[in-house]
Each structure stands twice: as C-alpha cells, then as structure tokens.
C-alpha cells in the first residue's frame, strides 16, 4: 500500500522544471484510541489521516507548502504554493535537497500486518484490564483518571528530483494509565505505561504496578529543606534530560550560535561515564525508522564518547554548510520542512541496578518525576531548573517521600558531574531511552 504514496510523490516530482529541485513527503496514518473509565468505554476514536508536504528549491531559494489531504486538486495547488513561497526567500548557497549517499537503508522489523486484524473489543479489553489491575494493586488507589489503549500504523514516503525515493512504515501500540492515591487528606498521582508493536507485547501488570507504586510511594511527602545534594534520576527523568542534551548537539543550533557546545568538538564535555549514542536503527527504540525525514538511511551516531564530544547531528543543509555529511538526522512531519534533531538517544549503560547505585551513594535524593522542563530549562544558556518529586536516599536506601521542590544546576555542570550510569536501560515512548543516572552537586530548593 505504501507504493501508492511513492506514486503520488513521483507524479509531483515529475512536474519539476529543469532548474528547480522538488521534494515531496507523503504521510498517511491510521489510529485507534480507547479511553476507559470505571469499566466502561469513555471514548473510542478511529481515524485515518494523510497529507503531503512539498519543498521547492529554485535559484538557491526555498519554499514550502503542505496540505492535510491527498486530493488531486490539492496536490497541484500545494506545488504551486511552494513555488510561489520560494520567490520570497533569501538566496542561500548551501540550500539543497538530500542526495543518495551510498548508505544502504537498513531493513528493520517495525511493521506488523497483524495489528489491523486485532478487534476493537480486544483493544477495549486491554484498557479495562489495565484499569482493574491498578485498582487491585493497593487499597489506597482511589481513582483512575484515564486508562488508555492506543495504536497506529504510519507510512511515509520521500521522493525527490535528486534521486531520493524511499518509503518507511511502522506499527506501534501502547497502554497508559494515570491514577490517584489517597491516604487521609494526602493525595498523590502516578502513571504507568507499556509500549509494543502488537497488543500481545504489552505488559499490563507492569504498567499497573508502576502507576500504583509511583502514586503510593509519594503519600505523606513533605517539602525538603534547600541544599546541595547528589541526585539519582529515575530512568524516565533521564530520558527527558537526554532529550534536552540532544537539542544542544543539533548542527543547526551550532551553525546559528545557539549551542552551548559549538566550540567544544573533540573536548571533554561530560564525565567519563557518559557515552551518548543516537541510533534510530535500533528496533527496540519506539522512534526507530529505516530512513530520516529527507529519505536518507538511518545510521548509528556516537555523539559523546566517554565524555568527549565526538560529533553533532546534521540534516542535508546543515551538513553541507558545515562541510560534512548528513548524519540522517532530518526530523519532520509532512507539514514542515526538515529540522535537525536526535532520533533515538541512549546512554551506554553501566553495570549496576538502581538499588546498587543507591547503596553506593548512601545519602541523596531520588528524582521520580520532574515538571516544567519547557519553562525552566534554557538549552541556549544552559540554565536548568525544574519542579521535582521524589524520595530521600538515606543509608543507601529509599527513605521518606518529598514533594514541591525544584532541582537546579546548569546543563554543562550536570554533564561533568555524572557519577554513574545504571544498568537499567529501558526504551520509552519518546526519542530517548531511560536509565538511572547519578548526578552530583545539584541544588534542591524547598522550604
């Protein structure tokens, strides 16, 4: 069926005139979302979406247009609009579409024919079972805000006048739940999820246990006193932290003077324990894909190796302007031009599980969740400050719960103060993997 998307791309690319480059991105997805509340279906949505994005480069000027439709009349309009938009852009000698670079497109096992055959009833049953399992966990769980099942199949094709003609396809599904625990006047919340490519890969019990544990272990939490401490980031928090670090390593941020690390290539930017890899060819990654947003083969890139900054990530434009080659890090949907971003980040895991890290540490704070990453972290200046919840670490073990505090440092300092990486690597429904991370000298602000 993806052949149809390629053909749409072919038809528009064939309309290119001799002196222009044209790139067409065609996307289509189908999805099902079920939300269950108190044993009944609260919402059930099923949908198919499709659309097209057209980029034109002509006389070193770039224009773009998209449409959320694959109707033939809309397709022609979109090309015309992109051409017109190009005439207003500033000429830029480095502009150009991606060109085939000889790297073979990996064959990844990301699509599941069987997903389409799973009945709606079976999907609803999973969400119902998840809600029930959370309630059964602990008498203090008093409410389930939402128990969801969702799945989707997405296909994307990129066709260009420079010889790109690729297609990718994947299937994914997940269950997620958020719950409320109460003990007297005290209320806390927790969430849990499980991801897979087919429903039978989902671990309902584990998702339920996570949600219950996150909520109940915070009951009775108090505000800590301010001070400098060593923190252990839970895997989910580390994954969010890596996403921010990844954004500072974008070739676009470097070229435009917005990266902390612009002048640091080849230097020590992190502790020796920190090896950061971006690899969308890892089929375990939720965001794995055979190609990037410009149709180049996905590949494994080591960004920081034992603390040393090895490379930035690039799309075709930033690579050309930086006199290097694309690392296949063009990131986009059909409604935008390719930007540059990390696609599947992970740290090289260490050898110890979280409880061993806690035992080694003795005293500190486990950070179980953070909030306000978008409002309190500035990836340009490096200032880092987020709301946090967690548990005190005392005598090498988890002790009393803590809430309503912030943790603050700078991104530069946090990287150099990484004391250890855990062995508990897990892939999460985001562009980075989680793992326990020990970071020294972080300021806790509380009472």
């Amino acid at each position, binding site marked *: 069926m993806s052949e149809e998307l390629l053909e749409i791309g072919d038809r528009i690319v064939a309309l290119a005139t001799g002196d222009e480059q044209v790139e067409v991105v065609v996307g289509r997805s189908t999805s099902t979302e079920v939300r269950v509340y108190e044993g009944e279906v609260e919402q059930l949505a099923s949908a198919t979406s499709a659309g097209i994005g057209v980029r034109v480069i002509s006389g070193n000027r770039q224009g773009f247009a998209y449409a959320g439709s694959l109707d033939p009349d809309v397709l022609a*309009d979109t090309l015309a609009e992109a051409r017109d938009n190009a005439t207003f852009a*500033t000429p830029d000698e480095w502009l150009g579409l991606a060109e085939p670079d000889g790297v073979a497109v990996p064959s990844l096992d990301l699509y599941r024919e069987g997903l389409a055959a799973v009945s709606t009833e079976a999907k609803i049953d999973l969400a119902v079972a998840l809600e029930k399992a959370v309630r059964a966990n602990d008498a203090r769980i008093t*409410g389930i805000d939402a128990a969801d099942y969702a799945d989707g199949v997405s296909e994307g094709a990129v066709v260009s006048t420079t010889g790109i003609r690729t297609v990718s396809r994947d299937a994914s599904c997940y269950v997620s739940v958020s719950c409320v625990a109460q003990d007297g006047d005290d209320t806390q919340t927790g969430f849990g999820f499980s991801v897979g490519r087919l429903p039978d890969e989902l671990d309902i019990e584990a998702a339920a246990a996570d949600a219950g544990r996150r909520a109940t272990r915070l009951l009775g939490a108090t505000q800590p006193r301010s001070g400098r401490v060593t923190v252990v980031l839970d895997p989910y928090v580390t994954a969010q932290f890596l996403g921010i670090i990844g954004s500072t390593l974008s070739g676009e941020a470097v070229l435009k003077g917005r990266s*902390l690390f612009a002048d640091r290539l080849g230097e020590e930017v992190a502790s020796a324990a920190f090896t950061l890899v971006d690899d969308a060819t890892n089929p375990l990654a939720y965001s794995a894909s055979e190609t990037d947003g410009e149709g180049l083969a996905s590949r494994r890139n080591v960004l920081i190796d034992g603390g040393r900054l090895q490379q930035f990530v690039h799309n075709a434009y930033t690579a050309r302007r930086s006199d290097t080659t694309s690392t296949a890090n063009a990131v986009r949907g059909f409604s*935008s031009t390719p930007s540059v971003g990390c696609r599947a980040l992970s740290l090289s895991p260490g050898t110890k599980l979280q409880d061993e890290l806690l035992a080694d540490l003795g005293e500190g704070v486990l950070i179980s969740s953070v*909030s*306000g990453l978008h409002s309190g972290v500035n990836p340009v200046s490096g200032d880092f400050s987020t709301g946090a919840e967690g548990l005190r670490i005392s005598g090498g073990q988890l002790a009393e719960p803590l*809430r309503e505090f912030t943790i603050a440092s700078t991104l530069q300092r946090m990287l150099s103060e990484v004391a250890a990486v855990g062995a508990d690597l897990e892939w999460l429904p985001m562009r980075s993997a989680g793992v326990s991370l020990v970071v020294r000298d972080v300021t806790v602000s509380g009472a």
Partner: protein
Amino acid sequence: MIEEALVSRVLGEALRTGGDFAEVFVEDKRSSSGRLDDGKIEELGSGRDRGAGIRVVVGETTGFAHTADLSEAGLLAAAEAAAAAARGGGGGVRTVELTRVDTSSQPVGERPEEVAKATKVELLQRADEVARGQGGAIRQVSASYGDSRRRILVANSDGLLAADDQTRTLFVVGVVASGDAGMQTGRRSVGHTMGFELFDRYQVEDLAREAAEQALTKLRARPAPSGALPVVIGSGGGGVLFHEACGHGLEADHIQKNVSVFAGRVGQQVASPLVTIVDDGTIANEWGTFAIDDEGTPAQRNVLIEDGILTDYMWDQLRARKEGRALSGNGRRQSYKHLPMVRMTNTVLTNGSSTPEEIVADTPNGVYVSHLGGGQVNTATGDFVFGMTEAYLIEDGKITEPLREGNLIGNGPKVLEMIDAVGNDFQMGPPGTCGKDGQGVPVGDGVPTLRVTSLTVGGTAA
C-alpha cells in the same frame, strides 16, 4: 462550507443505531507563515487543513471519527464509524431540524491573505535589523510571522447550527546575546484574534528592541536564589500563574473525575479576598477569544473566583449534560481531528487597588518577575511550576539585580491564599498555547501587579 441539508443527513446517519447526542464539526483552516533566522528569510510556508470530526454519545460512551473527505460519501462513512465506535444498541430513523444560531465573528480589519507576501517578509527583515542594531553582544536573531484563518461549522442533534470565522495573527522575535558568562536569550511575542492590523497596534521594531534588551540584561544576571521568598509578579507578565495554580483545576472534567483539589469547593473561600478570577472568551481581539467555542456555544465571561470565593467551574457539552446545567463556552479542540474538552479561553485576575510602586516598596526582600514562561500543574495535588524568563531581585523595597532563568514551584490552593497585594495596573500578557491531553489551543491571560507572600524559587544561589 457545506450545505445544511447534508449536515442534517450526516447527523441522521450518526444517530441511526441510537445515541443520545451527535455532532458534526467541520473545519477549513488556511495558514501562512514566514521565518527569518540567521539573517536570512529561510522559508515561507502555507498550509491547508480541512475536514470534519463526528461524535456520537451513547450513555457514558463517546464514539469519534474524523475525515478529510468532505464529500457526502466521506461524511456518511465517518458518521457510521463514529456510531459504531459509540456502540449504540437501538435504532431508528431520526431527523434533525437545524436552527442557525446568530453569531458575529471577531472583526478583521485587513485580511492577512490579501496582504502581499513581500510585506510580511519586510516585517521580519525590519525586526532583524533593529535587534542586531542593539549592540555587538547580539549574536543571533530569529523572527517569525504567522497568520491563520479558521472557519468552523458545528451542528448537533439538539438542532444547533453555528459557524465562526476566526483569524489570528502572530509575530515573534527571539534574540541570543553572548557575554563573558555565556549566552542568554530574549523573546517577545504578540498575537491577537485579528488580521494584519496587528501591526498598527504594535511596531516590530519595538518588539525587536525589547527582546534584545531582555537578552542583554540577562548577560549580567546572577544565579537566582534557592528557597522560599516573597514573589512580586509584574502586570501583564504573569497570567500563567493563575492558569496553572487554579485554571486547570477548575475544568469540569477534572472535577467530575475527582482529580482536582478544587472538587466540591464551590461556595467556599479558596483564595485571598483580593482574588477575583475570570475566564473570558469575549475580550475583544484577544488570543483566546472567539464567537463560538468548538461545540457551537457562544463565548462567555465566566467568573470562577469572586473575592476569594469559588463561584463556578468551566464546562463543555459532555460534562454540562451530565450535570444538567448550562454550558459556559469552554468546549474547545485543536482541530477537527480531536474531541473537544474543557479548556480555558482568556484567564485573568481583575484589578485590585494598590499601585505597583507600593507593592514593590512594601517588599523588603524577594523576587520580582516581569515575564513568566510556561508552566505545568498536577491538578490532583495542586502542585504547579512556572518559569521566569525575566526576573530581578528585590532588595530593601527596590528592584535591583537581574536573575538567571529558573522555575518557581508552589501549591495552587496555598498560593491563592497567600496573595496579599493586587495592583490597579491590569494588562493582558503575550499569546499562549495551552497543552492538555496532547491538544494545543490558543489562550490568553492577564494580571495586574501582584504579590505572593511565599513561593519556592528554584535557583542555585544560597
């Protein structure tokens, strides 16, 4: 957009297998944007999104389907899918008589789609030039322009038929400055539910100058304090405080599921008597303003907290229906691909009687926040954070040194009680996008100068 008789047939199809409520939402959105970065007009873009979302409610279950195919066949197929998803049992033919509701969309002075692209490009270039002219420490400038025209039509099985034509225009400038202590950023944005006349109200040169000034000021900023301190929030800069501290907690979906600290508290004192909070979708031309919400309900001014007493929550069709009460005009959705839910519009704290000078002078030591960034709240616990993008120390009743960025953390119900001064200098703040359950909608906020007796400031300085 689509003829009335067809809408009627689609509703009939949606209800064919039974159902308590059915709705058709049709949207046709065209947008254009321009981006300047690194001294170049990088890109002009255009977008078109058009489609319909259909929902059917049977008991407690909502079935939903959407389609980009607005032909009769496409709409009927979506109606059938939504009905199947809602799993209605009984059946029968039902005809829906539609009555058109009169509404008047926000006026548009100059249609952005009729403005030459070259004129939009020139705005970006002027902003770039002025920002770069603010000194050698300015290292990078980006500017973006965007406009959208969103036409919607809503019809439901109660016989409602309503339409709106919403035009929004936005301009943003971002600046990076570099000094001995690294890089800092500055940003200014303006956005209104209006057309190109936005640029009669604001000069892009002023925005560029202010963004550059913010970045330059922060170059000499010192680390923010760490710990609990009095916090003064400047007029217009800090509406997001109320959006997070109580706004989300007053959305009826959270109330009905008992995941809000404000559930069951109508009629009670939940804030300092100085606090009156209003969610108002009717304020002329504001970013969160519209004629009808995305369920066809006319926008309203809703008083949520009056002199500290909780008066009402915000409602959408589903939650109001369940409660058998009037709608409040807060049923919104990101696009035809999304189900509506309870959302804020423009959330404001009304004027008090103090002058801003008095409030600052009366604060021996603390933090003055002139511009807040975004925020986040856990409605069940009430704990919330919000970022400060421009802040200063208050020492001996005077605003002194600039501070580096950071988050502030507090607990909604506690913070509302700790507001001990409200100024008389109300202003609306910059345009925002509120995210909830994966959907973003345009919202506005506004506050006069105010003081909270104690908030935890998340800096690194002792």
